């Protein structure tokens, strides 16, 4: 198969126009010593039907969330993705455009980013959002970079209940920034505001997660206040799908709100591509990483949209840029925009209520001891009488994936299983999980 377009006749004409006799002549600038001089050792070319057959075969060897009753969550969730999200993704103009450097060619992309920024600001209670970051982990590193520059401090504090992958990414980036990373241990599944206040002394930022990785609702306003008391920027890592029922971080004093957008409009897709969101208070706008779209007018006074405040960015400011990001996750953010618009304020609240109700139902129906007392949003951690990984193995043999074994990330939690629900689950599904868990733990 080939996606090339030139015929032999085209090629001859073009070579003549260039004034060379073969394509090889064009490559004479490549020194002999660095040429490959052989064919690439790759498997033979496949036509489209064979390609589809081969890749379908690979896909068939995965057990996806439609093939077993899955309660996996832990940062990536099986919320309903409406068909309108596919409408956006299937439009070739969105799919095959790039960063809207030329606004007259890209008003549609620019307007959709502006609408996305507005939706993120509304949900998080912030003043300004960027056009997206890579995922929920890299936006945390970006947020640390913002805080470091704004405060001049060289330490960040992470709640231990913050998604472990997010913490790992911050720790990977921190040495380059010259940042020290401190963690505040969890206590009963949540973060203690007083401990957080002590740790936040001289810190640039504090990042906590609401609802947290263990499924619990944190005392988020108290955590934000504790961080602010110490002069650190309070940063909340939040789930967009929770913000119809849970308070907006801006309403309890956060300087930045960040998170993983996957739950709102993206398929699980084995971990990506998804979108990270990053929103901030107005006073931080000039330190924001990434693309930002603003409204303006054209020469005739018509409303128009354009990439703005670009002197923050790498293509202008180079080594003094607020970030190196250029390619981002716009298309995935558009799926998020379409999904959140499809839900509207009522739908988003209803999704949140269903999650709350099902989590509570799971807590009541599953005959295991909840690991933590704090209220859950859509994930509940249970103590298991045998290793949680073994529970997973045995339950999967019965067609149910019961959730995430927290011992993979937390010492002393080898016997804790994190069960996630979304609005796609029913009470019957939870009953079946309860029955399977009773059987394998019995």
């Amino acid at each position, binding site marked *: *198969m080939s996606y090339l377009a030139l015929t032999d006749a085209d090629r001859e004409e073009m070579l003549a126009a260039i004034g060379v006799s073969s394509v090889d002549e064009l490559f004479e600038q*490549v020194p002999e010593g660095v040429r490959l001089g052989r064919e690439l050792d790759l498997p033979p070319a496949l036509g489209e039907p064979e390609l589809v057959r081969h890749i379908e*075969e690979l896909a068939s060897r995965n057990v*996806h969330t439609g093939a077993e009753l899955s309660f996996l969550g832990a940062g990536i969730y099986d919320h309903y993705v409406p068909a*309108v999200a596919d409408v956006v993704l299937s439009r070739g103009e969105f799919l095959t455009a790039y960063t809207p450097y030329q606004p007259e060619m890209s008003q549609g992309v620019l307007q959709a980013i502006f609408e996305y920024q507005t939706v993120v600001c509304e949900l998080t209670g912030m003043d300004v959002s960027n056009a997206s970051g890579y995922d929920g982990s890299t936006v945390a590193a970006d947020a640390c970079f913002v805080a470091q520059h704004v405060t001049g401090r060289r330490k960040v504090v992470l709640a231990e209940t913050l998604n472990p992958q997010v913490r790992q990414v911050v720790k990977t980036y921190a040495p380059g920034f010259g940042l020290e990373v401190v963690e505040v241990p969890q206590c009963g599944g949540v973060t203690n505001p007083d401990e957080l206040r002590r740790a936040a002394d001289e810190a640039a930022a504090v990042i906590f997660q609401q609802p947290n990785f263990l499924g619990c609702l944190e005392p988020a306003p108290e955590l934000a206040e504790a961080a602010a008391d110490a002069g650190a920027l309070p940063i909340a890592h939040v789930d967009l799908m929770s913000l119809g029922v849970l308070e907006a971080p801006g309403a309890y004093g956060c300087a930045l709100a960040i998170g993983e957008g996957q739950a709102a409009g993206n398929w699980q897709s*084995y971990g990506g591509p998804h979108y990270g969101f990053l929103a901030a208070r107005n006073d931080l706008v000039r330190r924001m990483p990434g693309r930002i779209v603003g409204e303006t007018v054209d020469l005739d006074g018509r409303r128009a949209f354009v990439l703005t405040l670009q002197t923050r960015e790498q293509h202008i400011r180079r080594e003094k840029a607020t970030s190196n990001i250029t*390619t981002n996750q716009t298309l995935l953010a558009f799926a998020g925009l379409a999904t959140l*618009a499809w839900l509207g304020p009522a739908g988003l609240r209803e999704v949140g209520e269903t999650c709350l109700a099902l989590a509570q139902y799971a807590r009541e129906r599953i005959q295991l001891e909840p690991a933590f007392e704090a209220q859950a949003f859509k994930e509940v951690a249970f103590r298991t009488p045998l290793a949680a990984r073994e529970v997973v193995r045995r339950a999967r043999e019965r067609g149910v994936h019961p959730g995430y074994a927290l011992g993979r990330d937390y010492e002393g939690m080898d016997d804790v299983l994190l069960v996630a629900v979304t609005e796609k689950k029913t009470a019957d599904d939870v009953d079946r999980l309860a029955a399977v868990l009773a059987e394998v733990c019995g």
Partner: protein
Amino acid sequence: MSTHEPGQTWPDAPLLFERSRPGRRAGRPPQLDLPVPEVAESLRRSRPPRLPEVSEPELVRHFTALADRTFGVDTGFYPLGSCTMKHNPRVHERLAGLPGFRDLHPYQEDEAAQGALELMWRLQEMLAEIAGLPAVTLQPAAGSQGELTGLMLMRAYFADRGEDRDTIITADTAHGTNPASVTMAGYKLAKVETDARGNLDLDDLRAKVDERTAGLMLTNPSTLGLFDEGIEDVARIFHDAGALLYYDGANLNAVVGISRPGDMGFDIVHYNLHKTFSQPHGGGGPGGGPVAVRETIEPYLPVPRVTRDGESYHLDSGKPKSIGRVRGFAGPFGVFVRSYAFIRAYGPELREMSEAAVLNANYLLAQLRDVYDLPYDRHCMHEFVLSARNLKREHGVTALDVAKRLMDYGIHPPTVYFPLVVPEALMIEPTETEPKERLDEFVAAMRRIAEEAATDPELVRDAPRGRPVRRLDEVRAVKQPVLRYLFEEHPALVPAE
């Protein structure tokens, strides 16, 4: 050739929030006959978010209207230099959407994700062969994150060897991401100049490389579209000083199957899957930025690694010298499906892709060099840089004016004002998927614009007239930033409490 009529009117595109009416809705998520527990007042949402309230038909029309106001590769020729705007095969979308991929949770047990892991492992192997380097991580989310990952790998490598090196050298033609990544990785930046033929200036380089130098970041061919003819000497200078070479894969589309970065002497390479290996650019993303390295740097690669053990595949996080994790999970898997399919469709003939890309670029160059200035008079690789300084000098028409006028001919402008070493730069990359007819249309448009610059410069300076908007007041966007919809100005559209 198609041109839009000046003054053609485009329908208004109201904002989603302006299509909103209180009480209207599209989706109805399931509601269960279960009690909803109370959330403590301090944690409960106090004011409903002003999400749009729209019906599904209006929502579909909205996005259709926005798509209509967007120009993609599917719409027409898009020679945006250094961005490799090639055709995106539609079968990729079908494959990435297979339920076995789309609905696969990233924490699924390895034994229940063997197809996904095998695909990633095979992609790693193929990318390793293409780069000429043995070990690959797929994790980085985009090219610039690949750069940062590469610099972190250098840091870990030198720290492990007890060497204290603090400077990275970049070319004066480098993408802005290179210096920005250097800063984020905590390195100092030094710049090397380009000589009169467009190669790195070896004397300048020798003067700047010393025991404090950690490495070089270079894209080859450069952003001038020229292959560095002295690359073997460049590699020797760095390796003799104990430093490393990093290859920015932004321009890899020129040399696949012809010359491999590993064979050029590079130790660390990032690929842009969204450029060379045809991931749709999505209005700005997503991308993919895998990184390949030599054996000596392999221990430091990010975790998890995708490994093979006999016939089974695993995610392996047990790498004590790893720099850690640079993003979530094993990387943007959906991007991998597309790039894997792309490479499998070509097989060993992938070389033909680069040959066609280089032929197309040289054909355009040959037909335009007499009307625009050519700063470096050589055959180009997959892209080339012209200068509109002759039009500016003679007629007061700038590179930006040329770019805007191209829009009226139904063509997306090239990259302008980059690289910085060329004044009034027009950086043109046709890619391999364009047929000769589209190239000829571009040549005709560019030549006609050069004529228009002489005969009717106002026409060019006034362009575009055939797009939904004319040129924008970008200063106002900066001076009076409006970065979200101002609901306060439209109270009737706000949801009821």
